[in-house]
Structure formats: C-alpha cells, structure tokens
C-alpha cells in the first residue's frame, strides 16, 4: 500500500531531464544506479529461485509426512512445519505463485490502467468524464473489503486472485497514468499526429505511450507490489486457494498450525521475509526510476559548499 504514496509523487520531471534519461536508456541507467542494482539483483535472485524451485527442492513441497515441527537443522535448513513439510522447500516453491501472481497482477492492472488512462486522455470530454468517474469510484471504494467480497464469491484459484486484484488494483495507476497522458495529450506533437492523419489507436500507443515509459514503469512496479502484498493478505485470511503453495498460504498454514504459539518461528519468518524482500526490491527500483527521471531527488553525500 505504500506503493501508492510513492508513485503519486513521481511527478513529471522536467522535460530536459527526461530526455537525458531517454538518451541513455532507462535500463542502462537503472543498472548504473546503486539502489536499482540492489533491487534488480534481489528480484533476479527471487526469479531464479522461483524458476529453479523444482531443482533446488525436488518433489512436492506440500507433502505431508509426519507430525511435529522441527527446528532448523542440517536436514531441514529452515525446519519443518507442523505437518512435517520442509519450510525451505515451501518458501522456494512459494516464490513461484507469489511472483507469478504479483507480476501478472502488475502487468494486467497496468495494462488496464494504460488503456483507461490513454483513452481518457486521448478522447477527453464524455469518455474522460465517464472513465474518470469510474476510476475515482474504484479508487475510493475501500480496497481490501471489496477484495474480500469479490474473493469470496468467485471460485478459489490463482486466476480468481489475479482477477480480483486487477479489479481492485488498477484505479490508482489509471489515475496517475491519465494525468501523465493528459499532459502529453496536450502537447503539440499529438495534435501534429492528428493533423498528419494518424488513427487514434496508433496515436495512443505509438505517440503518447512511449513518452510515459518511466511513469508506466513506476506504476507497474507499484502494482506488482500491491499484487504480492494483497495476495498474501487474501490468502492469510483464508480467501485464497489454500491448496496452492505460495508465501501467503505458507503464512496461513503457519498461523493455522499455531506456529508462533508453539514457538515454531521458523515456519512463520521466511515467507514474510520473502514478501518483504521482494517488495523492498521493487520499491528500490521504483525509487531509482524516480531518481533517474528526476535527478534532483538523488541523495547527495554532502551538500556541496557554495563558493564563498
């Protein structure tokens, strides 16, 4: 949820700086930025873990074999759950569902937001009024409660979780993107494209959108963060699909098995930490994108002394 606060402040950077950013390529600059590098490395690590889970922890991670939660040991580095499942395996496999849902939600919500934002900005007038109204309503409707209601009435499963999160998650991004698109819509090059005879769709996606790369990026990252966090929240409440192995369900089971009460902190800690690390990594990248498009934000070691 912090994401929203961060992203709305990614206000339009001065054109010259944005231009400079483009010249050097956003990705290249990200790699140069220390925060972004940390974030990207972390993300890559988690992505790798997700991909390699079947290799790193072969077999069904949720296989129930014995009672008794065992503390971390050589056999089970992170111990076992109350049902004898290996916590490390669960955490590794959990990355798959969590990252998949997070990124799918992020991409889908951003896609919706882009379409709504662009259409709103491009067509203006009635279309804009209507879409803005819808956006604002979705924005004002309390998210989690709506999420709970929606999650409860749709059949459980990853696709439901994704759908529900997209439905409740796009509006914030749409608002940011609309504002940005609207300011670009007002630029003369859009009018010039119209005068040239370009079709609306082409203008929206070929002329306007490429100019919003960094905002799209920040909203995307924000949406991914939202997706991962909200999925975990839903699953923790038992509204997700508890037969899927994800960080959220791991926590659900840990809490169900009274992990903290029985002192089995190892069942509770890793998944939460994973969520936090991924969210942290995303936030770092987000922060870096802000810095790149708006170099003023860069923290200086020490304020350079003015000559005096």
């Amino acid at each position, binding site marked *: 949820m912090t994401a929203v606060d961060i992203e709305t402040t990614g206000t339009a950077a001065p054109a010259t700086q944005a231009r400079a950013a483009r010249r050097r390529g956003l990705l290249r600059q990200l790699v140069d930025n220390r925060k972004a590098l940390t974030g990207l490395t972390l993300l890559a690590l988690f992505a790798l873990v997700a991909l390699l889970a079947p290799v790193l922890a072969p077999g*069904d991670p*949720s*296989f*129930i*074999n*014995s*009672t008794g*939660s065992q503390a971390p040991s050589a056999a089970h580095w992170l111990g076992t759950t*109350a*049902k*004898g499942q290996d916590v490390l395996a669960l955490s590794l496999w959990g990355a798959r569902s969590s990252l998949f849902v997070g990124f799918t939600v992020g991409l889908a919500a951003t896609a919706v937001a882009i379409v709504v934002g662009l259409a709103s900005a491009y067509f203006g007038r009635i279309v804009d009024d209507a879409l803005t109204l819808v956006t604002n309503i979705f924005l004002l409707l309390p998210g989690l409660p709506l999420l709970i209601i929606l999650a*409860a009435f749709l*059949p*459980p499963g990853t696709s439901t979780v994704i759908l529900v999160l997209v439905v409740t998650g796009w509006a914030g991004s749409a608002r940011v993107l609309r504002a940005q698109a609207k300011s670009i819509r007002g630029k003369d090059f859009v009018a010039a494209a119209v005068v040239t005879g370009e079709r609306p769709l082409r203008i929206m996606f070929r002329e306007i959108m490429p100019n919003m790369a960094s905002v799209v990026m920040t909203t995307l990252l924000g949406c991914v963060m939202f997706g991962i966090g909200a999925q975990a929240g839903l699953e923790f409440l*038992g*509204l997700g*699909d*508890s*037969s899927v192995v994800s960080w959220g369900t791991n926590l*659900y*089971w840990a*809490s*169900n*098995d*009274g992990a903290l*009460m*029985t*002192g089995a902190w190892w069942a509770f800690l890793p998944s939460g930490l994973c969520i936090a690390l991924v969210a942290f990594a995303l936030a770092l990248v987000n922060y870096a994108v802000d810095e790149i498009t708006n170099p003023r934000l860069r923290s200086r070691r020490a304020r350079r002394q003015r000559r005096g």
Partner: protein
Amino acid sequence: TLVLSACTGGSGASGAGDTSGNQLLTIPREDLATFTRNFNPLSPQAAPMTLQAVYEPLAVHSMADAKDTPWLATKWEQAKDGKSLTFTLRDGVKWSDGQALTADDVVYTFQLQKKVLGGFDYLDKVTAVDAHTVKFSFNKAFSPAFYEISGHYILPKHIWSKVKDPAKFTNPNPVGTGPYTKIEKFQSQSYELLKNPDYWQPAKQHIAGIQMLAFSGNDSANLAFTNGEVDWTQSFIPDIEKSFVAKDKKHNHYWFPATGAMINWQLNTTKAPFNDPAVRKALSMAVDRDQITAVAMNGYAEPADCTGLARTYDKWRDTSLAASCTWTKYDTDATAKALDAAGYKESGGKRKLKNGKDFTLDISVGSASSDWISVANIIKQDLAKVGITATVKTPDWSAVSASYNTGTFDTGIVWSNNGATPYEYFRGVMSTKMLQPVGKQATEDYHRFGDKKADKLIDAFAAAADESAQRKQIDGLQELYNEDAPVVPLFTGPEWGAYTDARFTGWPTEKNPYATLGNRNGSTILVLTSLKPVKG
C-alpha cells in the same frame, strides 16, 4: 503515550490468578469477534450461554457417558405403542423472576417452536395433563423423539406470550430457569452472567458467575488461553501438549473424548466409478487413517472402522464385525489389487477408468476448515500411490455445501449427523428416504446412496420400544454398511475441550466422564453446576 502505556500495560483479562472464591468462570468464544445482546433461544445467533446457563431442558443427555440426567423433568414415560411420551416436571422450579415453572410453559414452548421455526413433524399434540405433567403425542411410533424433546429448552410463557414478534425479539434481559441468568457488564467483547437468585438447586451454584470473552479467531483465543487468562476453551489448539500443557503441567489439562460425529469421505455415488462399492472400498483402503488422525488432526481423533460408527456409539458397536474389518485398513497393495480386479488398471503410473481416461477425482472442502483440508491433502497423497490423481478444491463452505446439496460434487470431506443414538447417522448415509435426485436440494445423504434394506431396519429402530430391540436393527445396519460402504468413514471427530484447574475444579475427565468438555452443547450445564472455585 508510548512510554506511558508501556508501564501500565500488562495483564489482559481481569480474572487471571484470582482465587478469591468469587472469581468468574472465564470462557472465550473464538468464533465471535463481538457479541450482540441477543438472548433469544429461538434465534440461531443467540448469545453464548443462552442455552447452557439461562434456559434449561427437561433432561440432559451427555454424549460422554451416554447418560440422561433428569433436569426440569424428574421422570418420563414412553407409551407402550411408542406413540406418546409423558414428562413429570420437577417441583419447586422457579423462573428467575420468581414465577413457578408449570406444564403450560412446556406446552407453550413447543407451540412457539413449531410456529416460529417449524420442525417436529412427528409431534401431534402437546398437552398439559396437570400443572406438573406434560404429554407429547406423536403421529407414529418414534423413539428418537425422546432426545429431541427432552433436550429442548423451555421458555416462560408469561414472558414470551407477551412478545409481539418472538422471532425478532432480542430478549436482552432473559428470564430463565438456569443457574446464571443475570446479564451484567454487557459490552461488545465481553459480558458476565451472574447467579439466578431463584435457582432450583442453589447448592450447585458454586461459582459466582460466568464471563464470556470475544475473540477474532482461534489464534487470539488460544493465546489468551495458553496465557492463563481464560479457564475453559473449546477451540482447536495446535500441538496442545507443547503449547498449553507444557506451560503448567499441574493445572493445564485437556480431554478430547471421541464423542463427535463420524467424519466421512463421501463419494458421489451417482457418478461413474463411485457407484461401484468395490471401488469405494478400494479407495477406502488407500487412505492412511492413522496418518490423517495423527498429522491432520494433531492426534486428537480416532480412526474409523467398517461399522461406520463413531466412538460415541461404542456400546452399539458389533465388535466381532469391527475386528474383521478389511476395507478400512490402510493397504495400498490391496487397493491396487482391488482396483485391478474391478477393471481399473494402471498403465504408465496412471490408473485408468474403464473408458480409458485417467482416473482423477476432486476432493472438495470448505476453505475455512483448515484441518479437513489437510485431511484431503493426505488422501490426495495416498491416492497418488495407486495412480489416482486427486485435486483438492477449497472454495468457501457455501459453495461447497451448494454442490453437496445439489449433488454436483465429485467427492468431499463431510460431517455426519450426531444424535444420541446411531439412528440419525445411518439414516443420513443409507436411507432412501433422504435420497434426492441430482439437482434437487438434499439436506443429508449428499452422496446420494440409498438401500431399501436399510430403510426397513431404520424404521424398525425408530419404532422399537427398548434398547435391546433396537440392538438387532443396529447390528443389521452395521453389516449392511460393511457391505455397501456407502461412504468412506475416516475418523470420529473429537470434541475439543481444555481447561486449567488453577481457579476452578471439578472438571469432567476421562476418569469422571460426566460430560464432555464442550462449552456450547447440551451437557455444558452439567459442568457449570459441578465446578467449584479454588479458594485462597
């Protein structure tokens, strides 16, 4: 405020460690985050203790020892033809407003019940023979009626007849015959029930009162319990030995008598492979009941046998049959053989249906029942060993029960009826009376199995006047059950219950099983009237 509150914080509930003799019995409700002041027993959402401490039945049946204790009635008598039942009311019972309990109250209660909530189809008429005698007449011989009627709460006519809409009456200051009827300090997360000054057995009002606490879930309730802030809980506590008993071995105890209902894995018998009893038995053998009870149920449950009877009904069990059970024993090889024999061969690690497709099935469980989800997951693992692919589906309970009601489900983990006798259980799993076609709403027998032979036995049981006559029917039903395998019985659900005797003694235990440790069932009143406060 941070620093300031850090000093004043600390002990939560008031009662911890209080042994003044006036301490309140503190009971948590993990399933109610908040209370509403509704003490109307007709309401399914009546506040806790309405039916346990405020209103009382004619007789109390304890599932723990299967005994009936005369309560508001001192004795009862069944007519020879089994078509009527007469209760004699106790003398000197008073409502908490001082008025005396009369037969009219009983008559009125049942009238009201039928009017507002329905039910009691077999009940023809309730008449007050005299001020202390009530006669219930039935339209057929129906022995299970005794438990329903004797266990029913009794309301004061002089109060309720004045209530305009009894269904919507919240009854904030209830008038009952129970030991603790005075509601005090009602707040959204706690309230107290104090002594009824006119209680008919004041000698048994040892404790000063009851304090109810609201919790938002097992977690927070258990935390309070293991912290010693409440006395008696009924919520599921994971690894209770470690998380609770170990904290204070002297005072902390639990007892999980197997008095719950039989939990079944039901297979929709209207669907292809499951209509074959051989398949059902084969699948049953694939299930490792010991692992289920040990892991999924934390070792708190008892594995089932082929009689289908829960442990509650031990006295009804055909022990020789139980000793020779085959299809409830875990034996993967036997499953494989049986499936092969029935024509479901394995090829390439996958078992095939007769039409050549893979043998797959869904197991549905409501998402809220985490323990049963684990049960389903173990079954899934077990089935994988014989080449069957099971998928555990966990939508919300409402969606699951909707599919049960209409018979559209594949398989599922389901509860069963839990009456005073096995009558309800067998009716629920084998009678054709309860059978509904797929698509029609069913309220029991979701797996849609019926056996005419069972009908006869069940009806005979209901009509039989005494237990020895009924025994024969039950034996027959058990044999039939063993033959048909209408459902796959898994384990007897335990009745959770744990307490600390630091502040109160006299709890029911395995050695003194006068009641279960449940605090929201019919025998709770027995516990309330047995506990004694620790003094000093």
